[in-house]
């Protein structure tokens, strides 16, 4: 059974950033800028969310030739449901009109 826990402020911010465009694959640097947090805070959160099945991750070919593929992320169905459950607010830095729309 999944443990229910109160998400930290940083977790909420990551969810808010991902919910701004829930179907779009986002890379780490972009997410860090959107969520206004450092990579040191972001990556442990992404890894944890991925391990809990809330986040999908895949490799995407780089847009510019000669660059390595990038790891991109978006919320899974479970993650989307969880994001709605935790009721993100403007304080989490989310574009609320988008985040509250059905997936």
């Amino acid at each position, binding site marked *: 059974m999944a443990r229910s826990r109160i998400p930290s402020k940083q977790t909420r911010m990551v969810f808010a950033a991902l919910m701004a465009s829930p179907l779009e694959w986002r890379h780490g640097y972009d997410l*860090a800028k959107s969520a206004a947090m450092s990579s040191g805070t972001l990556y442990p959160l992404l890894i944890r969310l991925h391990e809990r099945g809330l986040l999908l991750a895949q490799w995407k070919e780089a847009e510019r030739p000669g660059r390595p593929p990038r790891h991109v992320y978006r919320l899974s169905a479970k993650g989307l449901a969880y994001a709605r459950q935790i009721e993100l607010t403007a304080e989490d830095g989310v574009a609320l009109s988008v985040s509250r729309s059905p997936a």
Partner: protein
Amino acid sequence: MTVHDWLANRLTHIAATRLRRSHPDWAQAILNEHASIAGEKERLGWAFGVLRASLAVPSHDLFYPAALTLAVSLMVLYQWSADEGVATLMVLGCLGGCLGFLRPKHFLLSGFAIGLVVSAVNGFEWLSGIHPEYETTPRTLWICLHWLIFIVPGLVSSIAGRRVRLKLLA
């Protein structure tokens, strides 16, 4: 290559090396992400961050088993060399707290392992007849079972260590 870029590269590679064993995909992800960031100051800031991330992410290496073995050994050594009392409780609390802090996920194992030591040492004395010189009370099964009570402070201390770690990470 500038000093900034050299340092950023080194830090990112250290972070990736640390992450590779437990999270190989994520180690590659931070390396590739680093290569895609424009601006040397941004890359350096990113590199410091991923190094911090690699330290914060629990790795599935031998660190925890080694720490647990060391903590249990210290507890056995202490229990063998000194009589039970408040000091035992304090040593047990410190070791349980440290283990709970090191691996919040394994707090139950940490608490039980540390808490069982006192009873286990008494059990060894009872079964083998070997005991420290200062120990005059003959060991019985009841005494061994009685000291299982130390599992409670073991668990309490590991939970406390876990809570501190989770607060720091939140």
